[in-house]
């Protein structure tokens, strides 16, 4: 019997050794494959994760808002201590959900900033990150203040402070940051356009047949036209951007800037089939 036990124990030991060896072998084989593809998916996954978090918080915000409205109605109707306590608790929950919504929103904006190409941009991404960090820090402080409230009367000034913060700082700054992303994206694509048109010009010139010289000349003039108009609209967009204030909401200026930037994008989009066309006539 003892011998049988010994045999069984040895067999299980063999199995364990084999299993551990397989794990040790598999891990270094699989991990390079994972890491090589991880960087490609990282940016998009971060945005998706941030969108999901924001969506979850938005749902919670809507739920707590409903509860707050109901509790408020009950308190106004009955004016009892119980209804007041309930109103306070629901208001507190609502304010906390507002803070959390704003924090996830700031992270969502940050994730878009991280996916934007800044190499050819006239803007400084660090400044934008600093602004987002500051706003995030302020919202967290306000959330702590809400957590420390104990009565309905205390929650009202905290809510006003949050409202002022959003109206005079967070909202205008983030709206301006979004416009910054938009222009930076256009700048990056424009830089790519310039680079590619120069390269393609040389490439095609050295290979084109004599009978297609007229096509090349007209292609060159078209790319120059796109370049000039895009540059002009980009300059106007940046000029309008400078007028956007970050201490109060100015939707008109934001819309104006976005509109001009869209004109720059439309000019760039004219080049979409132009490059492919030149490659066909070589």
């Amino acid at each position: 019997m003892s011998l049988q036990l010994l045999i069984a124990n040895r067999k299980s030991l063999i199995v364990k050794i084999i299993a551990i060896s397989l794990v040790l072998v598999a891990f270094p084989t699989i991990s390079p494959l994972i890491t090589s593809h991880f960087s490609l998916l990282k940016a998009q996954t971060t945005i998706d994760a941030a969108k999901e978090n924001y969506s979850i918080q938005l749902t919670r915000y809507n739920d707590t808002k409903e509860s707050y409205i109901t509790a408020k109605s009950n308190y106004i109707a009955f004016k009892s201590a119980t209804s007041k306590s309930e109103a306070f608790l629901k208001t507190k929950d609502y304010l906390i959900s507002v803070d959390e919504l704003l924090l996830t929103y700031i992270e969502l904006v940050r994730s878009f900033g991280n996916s934007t190409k800044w190499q050819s941009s006239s803007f400084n991404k660090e400044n934008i990150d600093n602004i987002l960090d500051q706003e995030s820090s302020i919202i967290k402080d306000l959330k702590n203040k809400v957590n420390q409230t104990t009565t309905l009367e205390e929650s009202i000034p905290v809510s006003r402070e949050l409202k002022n913060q959003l109206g005079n700082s967070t909202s205008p700054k983030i709206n301006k940051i979004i416009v910054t992303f938009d222009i930076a994206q256009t700048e990056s694509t424009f830089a790519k356009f310039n680079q590619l048109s120069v390269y393609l010009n040389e490439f095609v010139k050295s290979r084109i047949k004599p009978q297609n010289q007229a096509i090349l000349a007209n292609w060159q003039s078209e790319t120059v036209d796109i370049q000039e108009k895009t540059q002009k609209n980009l300059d106007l967009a940046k000029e309008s951007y400078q007028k956007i204030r970050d201490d109060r909401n100015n939707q008109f200026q934001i819309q104006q800037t976005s509109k001009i930037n869209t004109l720059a994008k439309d000019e760039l989009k004219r080049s979409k089939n132009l490059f492919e066309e030149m490659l066909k006539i070589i």
Partner: protein
Amino acid sequence: MKNENPENISPMEKQILAEELTAGMESEKPQKPKQIFKFNFVSFHQVLVSKFKKIIRPKPIAISLIILAIVLVFLAIVLISKDKPQQEDLATIKVTISSPQAVIDQEIENTKKEVSVFNDELESLDSELNSIKFPQIDLDINFD
């Protein structure tokens, strides 16, 4: 009662006597099978144990062989995965040396890829910035 004269024993009695004799013999026999059975069990058990021992004795060798096999398979996978890019490089070198036309075709292909990447970037200009508009939040908290 016994008949002294065997000729006078009836067939029935003979049968009975025979049965008594065999019964007497069988009473002796059970001891022998028990002894034999015990002996066979022990030897069978010993045979099994000896066979197990044959398997178990070279266990350290077996384990080390298994581990060595796993390591060799791993190294083979690493070598194969490393070889692939080299093979691709060799393939491109062969093309450039053997045919100038193939070089031009490769350059055209590379340029087409660049153009394709640029066109994708043009498409992404209409990005999802609209999806990150500032949320509408109601902060008019009052209980009047």
